[in-house]
Each structure stands twice: as C-alpha cells, then as structure tokens.
C-alpha cells in the first residue's frame, strides 16, 4: 500500500508541474519548433522578449494596477480575517457568504454586470475600474491568507495586553498588528501576483492603457512560438518567486507564533 501511495502522490505533483517544466525546457531550445527532439541550448528567445518595448510599457501599467489593488485587497482582507477569527457576531454567516460571493460567481457574469453598471452610470473604463474589479475578485484570497495566520496566533497575548490595561486600539496596534504583520505582507504579495496575471475580469473593464496580462493575451491565445515560451517562462518565474517569498514569510509568522506560546 505505502509504495503505491507514494508513487501516486509523486505522479500528481509531477502532473501539476508538467506544463511549467515543459515551457521552461523549450524556452531554451534552439529551434523555431516547440517539439522533441531538443536542438541545443540558446538564450536568444529571452533576448527577443526583453528587447520588446511594447511589453515593457505594459509592465509599467501592471504595476500601476497591481499595487493599489494589492493594498486595498490586503486592508479589506485583513479587516474581514480579523472579524472572522476573533469575534462572534450576529450575521456572521451572511458576512462569510458575502465575502465569498465573488469567488463563487463566474467571473464573466461579474464582468458583464459591471459592464451594465458602467454603461448605466456613464463611467469610463480605466485604471480605477480595473483596480476596483480586481480588488473584489482577489478579496476572498487575501482574507484566507491572513486568516490562516491569525488563527495560529495565541489569543493569550491579546488577553494579557487587555488585562494589563491596554485599550482595544493599543492591543491592536502593539500586539496584534506586529504579530500579524507577516500575514499581511504575504497577502499583499499573493494579491499582487493574482492582479498581475488576472485576465478575464480585467479584459472587460480595461481602458486604453492595458496591462501586460491583456497585451500578451492575443499572442498567447492564437500563436505558439519559442519567444512566447520564453515570455511565459519569465512570467511564471516572476509569479512563483513572489509567491514563494510570501510563503516563506507566512511560515516564519507561524514559527514565531508557536515559539512565543
């Protein structure tokens, strides 16, 4: 039984990493064809991607959208995670349902309903609409990331602070916030990555200045080339590096929470 189980788990993890590994492998392959057998190594596809001015412009717009989105999603996610993990209150079930509504509703349905409202109110599509739309879609994820850190924090520390005469605000600012800091940073990074790679919702509410994810969309949809392969690999590596950093930060938060109890 046990070798079978181990083999199965390895197979599933291999399946999860197969596409990533394949595009990474062929981004270095010295051939126009993305096919076996391999033809030797080259960096020329990366050279082509990094010399593309259009992509660099899109990258600037991506940062312009992703930073405010990540800040908003982290603040709102932090508030809801705190409410969910620290307090009992009336209407909590309704609050949870509301919070996960953007996760459960198909993105295209959310997007077309925004389209209706924007048309109805005569609001122009642009930076603000993209930030608001992405924040709503990303909020359930930041809430989960922060809540996963908060549930592991020892409540005795907050109670001790309260017993020692700290006000609610002092306890929050001097005990809870420092302890939850790493969770907030992790959530910020996760939100940044989700924002930078979001396509469906963003494409519906984007204006004239488009982020990288929209600029490269038509290429990715209709073409296959080693240059795109190199671009895809760069995007994956950037995303994974940010997520890996945030996970490391989140683990450290756990270690510290446990260490102090």
């Amino acid at each position: 039984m046990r070798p079978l189980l181990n083999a199965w788990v390895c197979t599933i993890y291999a399946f999860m990493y197969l596409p990533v590994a394949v595009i990474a492998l062929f981004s270095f392959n010295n051939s126009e064809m993305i096919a076996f057998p391999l033809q030797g190594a080259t960096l020329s596809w990366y050279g082509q991607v990094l010399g593309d001015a259009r992509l660099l412009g899109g990258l600037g717009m991506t940062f312009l959208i992703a930073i405010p989105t990540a800040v908003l999603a982290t603040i709102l996610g932090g508030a809801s995670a705190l409410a969910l993990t620290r307090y009992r209150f009336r209407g909590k079930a309704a609050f949870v349902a509301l919070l996960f509504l953007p996760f459960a509703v198909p993105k295209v349905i959310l997007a077309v309903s925004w389209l209706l409202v924007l048309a109805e109110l005569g609001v122009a599509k642009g930076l603000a609409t993209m930030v608001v739309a992405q924040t709503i879609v990303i909020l359930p994820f930041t809430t989960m990331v922060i809540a996963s850190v908060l549930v592991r924090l020892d409540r005795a520390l907050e109670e001790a602070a309260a017993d020692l005469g700290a006000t609610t605000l002092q306890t929050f600012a001097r005990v809870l916030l420092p302890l939850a800091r790493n969770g907030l940073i992790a959530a910020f990074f996760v939100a940044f990555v989700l924002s930078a790679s979001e396509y469906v919702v963003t494409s519906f509410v984007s204006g004239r200045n488009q982020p990288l994810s929209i600029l490269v969309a038509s290429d990715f949809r209709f073409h296959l080339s080693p240059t795109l392969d190199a671009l895809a690999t760069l995007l994956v590596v950037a995303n994974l590096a940010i997520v890996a950093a945030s996970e490391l930060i989140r683990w450290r938060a756990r270690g510290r929470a446990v260490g102090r109890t």
Partner: protein
Amino acid sequence: MERTRRLVIAALTWPVAAALLAFCVAPLLVLFAYSFFRVDFVTIVPDPSLANYIRVASSPTYRGLILRAIESGLLVAAISAVIGYPVAFFIAKRGRNAKSALLTLLLIPLYTGDLVRIFAWRVVLGAQGVLNSFLLWTGLIREPVRALLFSPFATHVVLTYNYLPFMVMGLWLAFEALDDRLIEAAMDLGAGAVARFVRVVLPLTVPGLLAGGLMVFVLVVGDYLTPQLLGGSSGITVISAINDLFGTAFDWPLGSAIAWTLLGLLGLMGAAAAAAMVRSAAARAMTAGG
C-alpha cells in the same frame, strides 16, 4: 467594554460589506433587473416581462449548454475527488514536517496565470506538440494523436489541472480533523482495511469532499478561457454564450436571463452542499457524543 467590542466589529465588517454590496451585489441586481427587459433593435426597453426566461427554458440550445456546464462541473469534481483523495490523505497523515511545503507546492501552480497555463498546455498537447513529438520520437506512435488538443478531452484534463488544488485543500482540512484513534479503534475491533475505509474514513471526510467538490464545481461551471481555447468546436459553453450576448450578439437582457438562471442553479447546488455538510457534521457530533 461591550460597546467598544461592537464598535470594533462594525469598523472591521462594514467597510468590507459596503464594498461588496456596492461592487458585487448591486451590479448583480442590476443584471437581474435587465433580465426582465427586452431589446428593440439597438435600444434596451425597460418593459418587464418573463419573456427572456421563457426563451432560455424553451431553447434546446441554452438548456443543453446549461446542462453541459453542470455535467462538466460534476465530472471534474468527481475526477479531482478520486485523484486528490490519496494526496490529501498523504499530506495530512504522512506529511510530518513537510506538510506546509507539500501544501505550498500544490498551490503554487495556481499562481501561474490563466493564459500562461493554457499556453503551456497547448504546447504539451498540440499535434506538433511536446507529447506527440515525444511519442513519435520514442516510436510508441506513428501518427500524431490529433484528438489530444481542441477536444473535450483537453478541456477536462486542463480543468482538472486548474482546480485539483481546491479539492485537495478541502479534503486536507477534513483529514486534519479526522482523529486517528477512531481508525485504530476500528482496527482493534477487527475491521479490515476496506471496512475501515468505507465505514470510518470515508464518512468522516464527507464534509471535505463536499467543500472541495463545491469549489471545483462552481469554478468549472464559471471557467471561460479553458473550453474556449482548448475545446475547439466543443468550446462553446453557457459562459461563452453569455459573453457573446453581451458582445457581438447584443442582447443584454437575454444574456442577463441566462446568467441569472445559471446563478440560481449554482445557488441551489451550493445550498444543497451546505445542508449536506451541516447534516454530516451533526451526524459526526452525535456519534462522537454517543
């Protein structure tokens, strides 16, 4: 003290609730209102009727698309439950120190982005793609297998790939809550491996199956890009139909009616799954108490 507590709760929940009500619930309600309107040439006439819902219900095309979305959702939920179950067990019960690392490794592919992921799968599954050229090269096949890409097969493989981590997360939580002593007790009482699984482990992980299954189901039903870009002629889904009605076909009211029919069905499935979860949790509490 009680007053401060209330103030804190209000300060934490109201901004979030207000944002969600304004930017998620309200737009969906506007969509709902539109579903009762009608289109007259190029203008939308607010002349409420159930005509759009009747059109959805009486159209074999739209009924078929909705049915197919639900079938796909159930199928992918079932596949990911079967292949994810041992993985969740392994992480929870055999993971030891590597538990966090295993979970993180499982979730990381979620962050590669929709389009990049689909691009990668096209590279893998295409007629001149990696899998075919690999099989040709090794001599296992003579002709490239064309059915790999642009088929329901490709769509379902990639949908499973996309949403498997959500199923494993749901199941992992259930396995974490599963008390090993119950399995030991069953073993002491002479239950074989099969009996232990069917009568102890499986019933106790039902909430995880339901939670994971519900997440996978709604995500598959709502997936727009995967069928469109990998399904070929099978790529028309209820979601792409809604998208078309809001784009080229310009029939926002009909699109809204299809969208709300789908939301209603998703809501029903969600409510059923939630009720089943509460019931199995109650059953567990009763057995634990008695």
